[in-house]
C-alpha cells in the first residue's frame, strides 16, 4: 500500500517524528516499508559511515526555486505554433514562461485571464525530472533561447515533480493555492510503500496505519468526524434491499446523494490519490476511492436515475444473490463476463447490476459525458466514435448517486477476482476480509466527500440491511499466559494499556483480563487461538526488541538421529572422495526427456506445469544427471553424481519417493597439461574401479558383477549388474551407441551407473577388519592360459578359495591374447600376496602355488604359462 505522509497527518500528529522514524516503527511492527518515495519533502542526507535504513527514491523540491505561481496572461508564441507564452507572477515578480502543455493550449492567445490559473513554477537552476525522457531522468533548468524567446524556467507537470510516472499536462492547482509559497510547503509529500501481510489487511488504509502508529508512539488517533448534513426525502422511501444469502452478504448499506456536478476533484485530492497509486477519474468515483483508501471500505456508486428507470413505477429494490451458472454481465471495463455460482451479484428486479465487491456493471455506472473522463477510465476511442461497451444512449452525466457499502464473503470475492482476473483495490481488501461495521462508516464518508466536491445534497438516512452480525471476540488473558508464551512479566494493567492503544476493550476481573476485539478486526479468534491472537498484539505493542533473549529451559528430546540422512551423507563423502562432482537437478521433467535412455508407462503428472518440458516428476535420476553432463560436455572431462528421490506413481494417492544414486562419467581420465597430451578416456573399468571403492567404503565385501539386461539403453557387451550380499543393487556400463546419439556428447564413451539406495542401505555391511601382520609378506606372480569363456572373477574366486587365509591379496595385472596362445584362449597374470603369522619360506609358497595351479587345471582347464 502506498501511503502519502500528508494523508496520515489527517489522523495523527506526527510532530517530532522524521519520515524514517515513522517507517522504522511501522517496519518493526509488521508493516514493512519497502521504499520511501519523496515527492517534494526534503530527503535525508547521509554522511560517510552513516547507516541507510530504507530504499529511497524521488526528489526534494527546492524551497527557494519551486513555488506556487499564478498565470495571469496566455499569449501565442511568435515563432512556434505548438507553444504558448505565459505571463505569470511567482509572488515576487512577473515572469515569462514557455509551455507546450496540452491542458493550457486551449487558452493560447486568450490574453489576460479573468481568473488567474494557479500552477507549480520552477525557477532557473531547479532540479527536477525531465518530462520528455523515458523513465525518471534528473535535469537542472538552464537558460536557453527557444525559437527566439528566452526560456529559463517552467511550469511543471506531475512527472517533472515526481508525483506520477507519466503526465500529459501541467499541474493546475486549486484556486486557493497561496502564490509565492514554496511548493514543498504547500504540497510537498513523501510516500511510504508498505507491504501488507495477509493478517494485516485491516491496516490497508490510512486510518489503519495511523492507528498502529498511534499505538506504537502513544499518540492520539484523530477519529474521523462522520456527521452528515442532509436534505430532501429520505433514501428509505425510494430504495429497499433484499439479501438472499447472508453468508455471502452479511451487510448491505446504501445512501443517496442528489444533484451532483461531475467534474475533476480538487487537485489536493487528485494528488493524494495518485500518490496512493489510484487514478483520479472524477469527483464521484474519486470520492469512493478516497474513502476506501482512507477507511478501508470499498464503495460502489450507482447512477440512481438508471436504477429508477429500470424500476419503473416501483421502488428500487436491490437484491444480492449468487450468480447462476452461465449468467452474463457486462462490467464497466466493457467486457462481457460469463459467471459461475461462486460469483455474487448485486441486482435489481430487472437483473444484474454489478459483480459484487469486484467490479461494477457497465449500465448503471456513474457516467460523465465529457471526453476526458472516457479517456481516463481507459476505454480506447477513435474520434467521432462512442466508446465500446458503453451505453450509447446515455448522453447525460450522472446527477443522482446511490452509494453502496457492503460486506461480502471473502472466499467468494477471492475466487471471483481470480476467476475473472480482476485484481483491484476493492477485491484486494474484500478478499482479505473487511469488517461489516465499516460498511456504514464507509458510505457516510463517501457521501461527505461527494457533497464537498460535487455540491450534492445528501438524502436523510441510510438503507441498512445487516442480517449477519459477526460475534465480538472475547478472550481471557492472564499474566501467567504472557509469561508462559512470551517470556515477559507484565501486570494486567500493563497488558490492558498495551491493548487499549489498539482499541481493544479491556476489563480486569479476578486476576484475569477480559479482552474484546475492536469492530474493525476480523482476525481475532476466541479460546486458545484467540489467546495467541491477542498475545501477538501484546508483543507487537510492547515491541519485539524489548523482549529479552533467553535459552530454553525445557528438557532435551530423546536422541534418535536420522540414520538414513547420516548414511546418505557418508555416501556423498565417499562419492566426492572418488573424484565425483555432486549435482542437484530439477524434479520436474517430461517423459520425452527421459525416453532418451529409459521409458516408463506411468508418471506422476503435474496438473499445472509451467512448461511442457516440466510436466511430470522424474522417474530416472540417471536421465537427469545425463542431461547435466550433456550440458557440460564441452569440458575436457565430466564425472558427476546425484543422490535424490525419484517419483513412482500410485493411483490417486501420494507417489513413492525411493532414493537413487546416479553417476555419469565421460571424457579424459587425466587432466591434460602442457606436458600431458592425449589422456585416455574414461571407460567401463574407470567406473568399475570407483564402484569398487564406493562399496568398499560402505564396508561391503560380498560383491558380484555379472552381465545382465538393464532397463536402461546400455551397451550390451559393456554393462553389468552389481550384486551385493546376493541382491541386485545397481547397474552400470557404457551408454548404448544409439542412446548416445540422442545427446550432444563428444566422441568419448559415456559411462553411467545407477544404484537403488533403498536396497543398498538395507544390506548388512561386513563386520570387523583384517588384522595387519607383523611378519613379512611374500609376493609371487602366476600366469595361466585358459578358455575365453571363463570369467576372471571365477578365477580369482578359485585362487582365493584354494589359497585360503594365507593368500591375502590377488591382483590381476595382465590380460593377454595372441595366436601363440591360440584362438578362444586368454592369458591371465596374477600377482599373489602370501601372508601368515610366521615368516614364510620359499617351500611354503611353492606348496600353496602348486595347490592353486592344480585346482585351476582341474576346475577350469587352465594351464600354467611358462
Amino acid at each position, binding site marked *: 500500500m502506498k501511503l502519502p505522509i500528508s494523508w496520515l497527518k489527517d489522523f495523527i500528529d506526527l510532530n517530532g517524528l522524521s519520515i524514517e522514524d515513522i517507517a522504522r516503527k511501522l517496519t*518493526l*511492527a*509488521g508493516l*514493512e516499508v519497502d521504499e520511501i518515495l519523496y515527492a517534494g519533502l526534503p530527503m535525508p542526507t547521509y554522511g560517510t*559511515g552513516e*547507516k*541507510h*535504513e530504507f*530504499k*529511497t527514491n524521488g526528489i526534494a523540491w527546492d524551497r527557494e526555486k519551486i513555488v506556487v505561481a499564478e498565470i495571469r496572461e496566455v499569449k501565442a508564441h511568435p515563432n512556434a505554433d505548438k507553444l504558448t507564452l505565459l505571463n505569470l507572477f511567482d509572488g515576487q515578480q512577473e515572469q515569462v514562461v514557455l509551455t507546450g502543455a496540452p491542458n493550457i493550449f486551449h487558452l493560447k492567445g486568450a490574453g489576460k485571464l479573468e481568473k488567474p490559473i494557479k500552477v507549480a513554477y520552477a525557477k532557473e537552476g531547479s532540479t527536477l525530472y525531465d518530462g520528455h525522457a523515458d523513465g525518471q531522468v534528473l535535469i537542472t533548468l538552464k537558460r536557453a533561447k527557444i525559437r527566439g524567446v528566452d526560456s529559463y524556467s517552467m511550469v511543471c507537470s506531475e512527472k517533472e515533480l515526481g508525483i506520477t510516472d507519466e503526465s500529459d499536462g501541467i499541474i493546475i492547482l486549486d484556486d486557493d493555492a497561496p502564490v509565492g509559497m514554496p511548493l514543498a510547503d504547500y504540497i510537498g509529500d513523501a510516500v511510504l510503500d508498505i507491504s501488507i*501481510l*495477509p493478517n494485516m*489487511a485491516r491496516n490497508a488504509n490510512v486510518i489503519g496505519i495511523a492507528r498502529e502508529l498511534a499505538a506504537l508512539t502513544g499518540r492520539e488517533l484523530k477519529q474521523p468526524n462522520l456527521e452528515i448534513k442532509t436534505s430532501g426525502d429520505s433514501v428509505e422511501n425510494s430504495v429497499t434491499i433484499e439479501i438472499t444469502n447472508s453468508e455471502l452478504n452479511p451487510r448491505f448499506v446504501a445512501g443517496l446523494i442528489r444533484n451532483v456536478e461531475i467534474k475533476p476533484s480538487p487537485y489536493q485530492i487528485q494528488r493524494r490519490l495518485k500518490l496512493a497509486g489510484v487514478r483520479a477519474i472524477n469527483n464521484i468515483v474519486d470520492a469512493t476511492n478516497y474513502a476506501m483508501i482512507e477507511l478501508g471500505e470499498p464503495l460502489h456508486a450507482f447512477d440512481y436515475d438508471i436504477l429508477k428507470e429500470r424500476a419503473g413505477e416501483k421502488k428500487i429494490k436491490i437484491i444480492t444473490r449468487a450468480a447462476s451458472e452461465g449468467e452474463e454481465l457486462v462490467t464497466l471495463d466493457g467486457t462481457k463476463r460469463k459467471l459461475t455460482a461462486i460469483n455474487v451479484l448485486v441486482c435489481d428486479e430487472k437483473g444484474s447490476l454489478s459483480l459484487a465487491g469486484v467490479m461494477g456493471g457497465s449500465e448503471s455506472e456513474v457516467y460523465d459525458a465529457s471526453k476526458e473522463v472516457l479517456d481516463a477510465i481507459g476505454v480506447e476511442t477513435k474520434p467521432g466514435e462512442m466508446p465500446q461497451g458503453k451505453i450509447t444512449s446515455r448522453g447525460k452525466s450522472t446527477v443522482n448517486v446511490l452509494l453502496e457499502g457492503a460486506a461480502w464473503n*471473502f472466499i467468494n470475492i*477471492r475466487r471471483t477476482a481470480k476467476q475473472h482476473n480482476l485484481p483491484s483495490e476493492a477485491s484486494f481488501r474484500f*478478499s482479505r476480509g473487511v469488517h461489516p461495521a465499516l460498511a456504514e462508516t464507509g458510505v457516510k464518508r463517501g457521501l461527505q466527500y461527494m457533497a464537498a466536491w460535487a455540491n450534492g445534497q445528501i438524502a436523510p438516512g441510510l438503507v441498512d440491511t445487516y442480517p449477519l452480525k459477526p460475534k465480538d471476540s472475547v478472550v481471557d488473558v492472564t499474566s501467567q499466559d504472557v509469561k*508462559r*508464551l*512470551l517470556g*515477559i512479566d507484565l501486570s494486567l494493567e500493563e497488558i490492558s494499556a498495551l491493548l487499549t492503544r489498539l482499541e481493544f476493550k479491556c476489563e480486569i476481573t479476578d486476576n484475569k483480563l477480559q479482552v474484546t476485539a475492536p469492530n474493525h478486526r476480523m482476525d481475532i479468534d476466541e479460546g*486458545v487461538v484467540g489467546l*495467541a491472537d491477542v*498475545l*501477538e498484539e501484546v*508483543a*507487537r505493542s510492547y515491541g*519485539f*526488541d524489548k*523482549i*529479552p533473549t*533467553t*535459552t*530454553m529451559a*525445557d528438557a*532435551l*528430546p*530423546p536422541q534418535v538421529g*536420522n540414520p538414513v*540422512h547420516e548414511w546418505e*551423507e557418508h555416501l556423498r563423502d565417499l562419492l566426492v572422495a572418488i*573424484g565425483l*562432482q*555432486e549435482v*542437484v*537437478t*530439477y*524434479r520436474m521433467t517430461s517423459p520425452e526427456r527421459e525416453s532418451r535412455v529409459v521409458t516408463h508407462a506411468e508418471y506422476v503428472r*503435474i496438473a*499445472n506445469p509451467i512448461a511442457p518440458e*516440466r510436466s511430470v*516428476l522424474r522417474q530416472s535420476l540417471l536421465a537427469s544427471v545425463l542431461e547435466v553432463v550433456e550440458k*557440460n560436455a564441452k569440458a575436457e572431462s565430466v*564425472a558427476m553424481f546425484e543422490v535424490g*528421490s525419484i*517419483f513412482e506413481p500410485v493411483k490417486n*494417492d501420494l*507417489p513413492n*519417493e525411493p532414493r537413487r544414486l546416479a553417476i555419469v562419467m565421460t571424457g579424459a581420465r587425466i587432466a591434460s*597439461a602442457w606436458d*600431458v597430451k592425449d589422456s585416455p578416456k574414461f571407460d567401463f573399468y574407470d567406473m568399475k574401479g570407483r564402484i569398487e571403492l564406493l562399496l568398499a567404503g560402505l564396508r561391503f565385501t560380498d560383491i558380484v558383477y555379472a552381465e545382465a539386461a538393464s532397463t536402461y539403453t546400455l551397451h550390451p557387451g559393456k554393462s553389468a549388474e552389481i550384486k551385493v550380499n546376493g541382491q541386485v543393487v545397481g547397474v552400470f556400463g557404457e551408454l548404448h551407441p544409439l542412446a548416445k546419439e540422442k545427446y550432444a556428447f563428444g566422441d568419448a564413451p559415456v559411462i553411467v551407473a545407477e544404484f537403488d539406495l533403498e536396497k543398498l542401505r538395507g544390506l548388512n555391511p561386513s563386520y570387523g577388519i583384517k588384522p595387519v601382520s607383523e611378519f613379512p609378506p611374500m609376493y609371487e606372480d602366476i600366469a595361466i592360459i585358459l578358455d575365453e569363456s571363463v570369467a576372471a572373477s571365477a578365477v580369482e574366486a578359485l585362487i582365493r578359495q584354494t589359497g585360503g587365509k594365507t593368500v591375502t591379496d590377488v591382483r590381476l595385472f595382465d590380460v593377454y591374447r595372441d595366436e601363440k596362445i591360440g584362438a578362444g584362449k586368454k592369458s591371465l597374470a596374477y600377482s599373489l600376496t602370501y601372508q601368515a603369522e610366521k615368516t614364510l619360506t620359499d617351500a611354503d609358497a611353492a606348496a600353496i602355488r602348486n595347490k592353486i595351479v592344480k585346482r585351476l587345471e582341474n576346475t577350469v582347464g587352465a594351464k600354467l604359462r611358462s
Partner: protein
Amino acid sequence: MLDKLNEIEKAALESLASINDQSALDAWRVANVGRSSPLMQVFAGFGKLSKEERPVVGAAANRVKVALESALEERAQAVKNAALAKSLEEEKLDVTLPGREVKIGRLHPSTQQLRRVLAILAEMGFQVYTSREVETDDINFQMLNFPPDHPARDMQDTFFIEAGDRGDNPILMRTHTSPGQIRAMREAVATNPNDPPPIRIALPGMCFRYEQITARSEIQFNQVEGLAVGKGITFADLKGTLTDFVRRMFGQDARVRFRASYFPFTEPSAEMDVECFVCGGKGCQVCKNSGWLEILGCGMVHPNVLQNGGYDPKIYSGFAWGMGPERQLMLRNKITDIRYFWGNDVRFLEQF
C-alpha cells in the same frame, strides 16, 4: 727405495689433482692403490729387502699408502660436490609454468551450505528430520493453518499433481518443509501419547513453488526449518536461540533485529534481519540500501498447528523458523542469478 716411494707419491698426487669425475677416480684407484700398482709392488717386493731396510721402507710405504688413500677420499668428496652443484644448476625449473590439475570431487554448493547449517543446529541439539517432497494439501496447508482459499495461500503458489478428484485435499508439491512439523509431532506423540516428548528438529529439504524460472525466482529451492516444542518455551527463548544460531552463522558480532511478520502456522510471527555483512549496515546494493538482510522467518508455533500435531496448546508451546540455504549462498557469494544452482554448470560448481 725411499726415493722411489717419494716419486710414486708425487706422481700419484699430481695425477689425482686433475681428476674431475667418478670414472677417472676409479681408474686412478686401480692405478695407484690397486693390487698391481707401483706402490703395492713395493709391498710385494718386501721379501727381497735386507733385514735393516724392511722397517724403514715399510714405514715409508705405509705412510704413502695412507696419504694416497686420504687424498683419494678428499678428491672423491670434491668431485661429488662439484657434480651435485652442477646438477642443481642444470635442474632449474620454470616455476611459472602451471601446476598439474588434479581432478577432485566436490559437493554441490547447496549441500555444502545445508551441512554448515545442520552442523550448527546439531550442536544446538536439533536433530535432522526429513520427509517427503510430494504432499497432500491437508498436511502441507490445512494442518498448518492455511484453510482452503485462505489469503496466505497467495504467498505460496503451488504445483498440483494429477490425482483424480480428491475434493479439498489434492496432492501437491510441498511448498515448504513445514509439513514435516506435523509429521514429526505426530510421530513423537505416537511414542508416548499421554506425555509426548519434547521436540527439537531441523527439517532440510527441497520445496517447490509455481513460479517462472528467472534470475530471481525458481520452481524449486532448499529450505531448512527448525522446530522446538516443549513445556514453557517462550518467545524470549525463540529470540535467544535464533540470536545464538545467527551469530554462529554470521559471526559473534552480528547485529540482529526481529520485525513483526505473518505466517499462518506461527503466532506471533517475525522476520529476523541480520546487519548487512557486505556493507556493515551502511547501505549497499545487496541490502537494497536498508543496512539489513532478511535472513529467516520465525514465530511461536500456532495453537492450531500444535493441536494438529497432537500437542495440547494449553500445556505445550514451541517455536519454528525457516531459511533458505541458496539465499544465504547468494548473499555470501554475490550470486545474482538463482538459476546457477540447478543449472549445474561445472564452471559454477567448481568455485565452491
